[in-house]
């Protein structure tokens, strides 16, 4: 590979030497050394809590290291804040965009660095510069479009353009693909390659290994605050990287056990649901999930998944149709009554819907179960019963807590999800709704969720898996429905489904499909 040979001889742009950062009780970065060559795409991978974000915050001046040096173009520098970083030529594209939605693309790009003549923004001059940059790097954007009207992928391009406009030689992208659909990821990768080919340097933070292998020249693996290894991408494979990240071999492919057809436990009949603003987001959807089956709803984010899930669990009223749990019509019941009827829910946004972050882990473990007889002594909560329950759950699901009062927000993402899973599997539910259950999780935690879903399926639960991750759907599901524009565009048995066909339905193509009988 010619380009890699060129990179190997390219001068070193940035060198981090023995960077150490200590937080109370945690060694976030432990003597991290890393060198980034000019014109390479350098990936930084590691589980949640491995120290990636801390390291980049130090580089961008948001945190100061307790030890070590940052060397930029051969010169030791102190990065006091983002201002210093920008002057050096370090730009950051955050996971959550920092844009003003009502402003146009052009206004957002120049905001804070507007060229001015006599106090008046020189818009024409700015436009010419921005347009030239966008053109040079193939960033396809309408400069006069309002940012609020743009797709997530386009907004990300605005962020990249913003960094380039400020003269960034080194771009740091923090989990840039977490918010993108597959097509947008391809577009982003095209942009990144073009940036690299024209001499810009990129640090790409991720824990999606296949993407890292595709885009990066070299990959540095962090684990528990240390650099485990830096490898050349062509010599690495997903299994090897996963093992480096987690510290032990990881089972990437869960063996799927075939589902013996059981009785229908969740039945959705002719369901229509309105979204915000009164628009129908789910239209006449019917399906049923059987005991011992994982039924997956695939589709690109924003095709009605959120409304469908909220309606099934009782957070959003149905405009039409019926929902049955174990044969019982729950359409008119409250969330609490549906939970009592055997419905469990792993929400897609665990920070918003799954946890009360300031409350302790043990209090979060009984959320939704707190009215059960097991926890009540009269009007009061039985503290000892809660403690016993929480301790047992933490043991079974390997949730590590610093203390009894540890708030949920002090837990890692993986531990938070374990907590939600541990809670929702308690008191033997009949139907589990798992919405994006592995979003934001690292390899180890994802593996845990996959294995747990397989286990409860074997125990006879009916699982509705809603996921935008096609690989996840194909790895876990027994039957797959594709949700497109609020309708079920097609339903397949796993044996009859492949990524290409599902992808076609996900984008609105494909002939209307017959229902798949399990």
């Amino acid at each position, binding site marked *: 590979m010619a380009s890699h040979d060129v990179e190997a001889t390219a001068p070193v742009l940035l060198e981090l030497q023995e960077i150490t950062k200590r937080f109370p009780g*945690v060694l976030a970065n432990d003597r991290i050394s890393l060198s980034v060559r000019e014109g390479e795409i350098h990936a930084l991978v590691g589980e949640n809590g491995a120290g990636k974000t801390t390291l980049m915050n130090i580089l961008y001046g948001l945190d100061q290291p307790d030890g070590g040096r940052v060397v930029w173009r051969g010169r030791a520098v102190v990065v006091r804040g983002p201002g210093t970083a920008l002057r050096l030529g370090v730009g950051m594209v955050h996971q959550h965009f920092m844009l003003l939605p009502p402003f146009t693309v052009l206004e957002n790009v120049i905001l804070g660095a507007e060229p001015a003549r006599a106090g008046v923004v020189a818009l024409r001059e700015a436009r010419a510069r921005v347009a030239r940059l966008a053109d040079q790097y193939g960033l396809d954007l309408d400069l006069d479009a309002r940012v609020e009207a743009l797709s997530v992928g386009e907004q990300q391009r605005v962020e990249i353009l913003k960094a380039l406009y400020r003269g960034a030689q080194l771009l740091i992208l923090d989990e840039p693909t977490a918010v993108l659909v597959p097509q947008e990821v391809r577009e982003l990768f095209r942009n990144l390659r073009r940036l690299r080919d024209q001499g810009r340097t990129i640090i790409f933070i991720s824990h999606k290994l296949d993407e890292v292998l595709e885009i990066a020249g070299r990959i540095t693996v962090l684990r528990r605050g240390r650099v485990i290894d830096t490898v050349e991408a062509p010599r690495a494979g997903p299994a090897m990287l996963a093992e480096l990240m987690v510290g032990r071999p990881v089972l990437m492919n869960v063996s799927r056990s075939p589902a013996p057809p059981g009785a229908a436990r969740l039945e959705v009949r002719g369901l229509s649901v309105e979204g915000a603003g009164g628009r129908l987001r789910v239209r006449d959807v019917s399906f049923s999930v059987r005991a011992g089956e994982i039924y997956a709803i695939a589709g690109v984010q924003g095709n009605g998944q959120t409304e469908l899930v909220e309606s099934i669990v009782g957070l959003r009223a149905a405009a039409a149709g019926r929902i049955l749990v174990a044969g019982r019509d729950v359409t008119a019941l409250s969330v609490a009554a549906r939970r009592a009827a055997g419905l469990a829910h792993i929400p897609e946004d665990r920070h918003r819907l799954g946890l009360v972050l*300031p409350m302790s882990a043990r209090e979060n473990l009984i959320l*939704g179960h707190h009215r059960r007889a097991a926890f009540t002594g009269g*009007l*009061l909560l039985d503290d000892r019963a809660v403690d016993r329950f929480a301790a047992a759950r933490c043991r079974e699901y390997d949730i590590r807590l610093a203390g009894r009062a540890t708030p949920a927000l002090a837990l890692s993402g993986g531990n938070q999800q374990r907590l939600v899973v541990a809670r929702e599997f308690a008191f033997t539910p009949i139907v589990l709704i798992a919405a994006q259950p592995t979003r934001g999780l690292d390899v180890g935690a994802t593996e845990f969720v996959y294995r747990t879903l397989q286990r409860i399926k074997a125990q006879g639960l009916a699982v509705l898996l809603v996921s935008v991750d096609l690989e996840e759907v194909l790895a876990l599901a027994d039957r797959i429905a594709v949700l497109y524009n609020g309708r079920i565009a097609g339903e397949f048995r796993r044996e009859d489904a492949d990524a290409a066909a599902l992808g076609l339905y996900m984008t609105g193509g494909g002939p209307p499909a017959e229902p798949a009988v399990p």
Partner: protein
Amino acid sequence: MRPGGLLLVQAATPMVAVFAGGLIASAIILAIHENPLRVFALMAAFNMQPSSVASILTSATPLIFAGLATAIGFRVNVFNIGVEGQYYVGAFAASLAAFGLRGVPAALHLTVIVAAAMLGGLLWVWVPAVLKRRRGAHEVITTIMMNYIAFNVVLYLLGLVRDRNLGSTARIRTPLFPPSAQMPRLTPLLNALGASIPSYSTLNWFLGIALALALVVWFWLRRSRFGYEVRAAALNAPAAEAAGINVAQIQFVMFLLSGAAAGLVGLSDLLGRTGYFDIDFPKGLGFLGISVALLARNDPLGVIPAALLFGYLDRGAEGIQAFASVPREVITILEAVIILAIVVAYEIMGRYVRALRKQEVA
């Protein structure tokens, strides 16, 4: 930092605020050519006297009720600014039960009056609570409006029931309450225990009721199932909803309870001091209750020291006015500065705590 350390930082915040308030008040005292140390020393000495202690406890009593009423609402993000109107209506309802009912034993009479006061507060909070629940009307607007209505409606009704046997005097007040409607004084008990409270003090058993209520509310919010739901609903409403907790209903219930507690604010004055309701019945206790709840960070037990602090400053203001010829407005400024300092200090501490927590997560 461990959770214990965080708690310590949070607990220290009100003290930092009070200290900052003291500094700014010192600057004002300096500006009027007095020695702040001397003024504060005088205030401290004056407030040590038994009569002052009794006065502080007496003025803290309604503030504990007002602080509790406010905190109960604020705990679930219901900003009941209408404690003012609710206690005014509650006090008037109580006075109707006080002079309207005669020849019953004191225990029964007092119980009926307390119930009437709570019902009065409940009646006045009912309208904004229902408007919020059914129509989503914001409680800050509706409760403020209800305050204005309360004052004028009560004045009108007072005109209807006023004592007409007062001859030519211009006083407008209800008939005097019978002895069965008087709350017994705390003085005999405290003096028997060795205190030397002067006989003119109106310190009465509503102090005990206020303390007990604070304790009950605290325990109930901390340990009961409902209290658990209240905390979850306040800290993350969407997650509480997803767990089957009816957040709107909890807010509704707490809104009503806030109003019922507000009904009790005026009783200590009404049944322990005046013995009638007149057009000069004290106003403004509801608004002070907001300051008390703010200083207490909406903690039911924290309301007690917060109310005592305001009682302390109030009494101290009388002292320095009388003996140091420092106008009592200086203390009013001090109170206001403390409240401002609290808001600022909580914001700063909040940021600090968030930063610490972020580091814990990283």
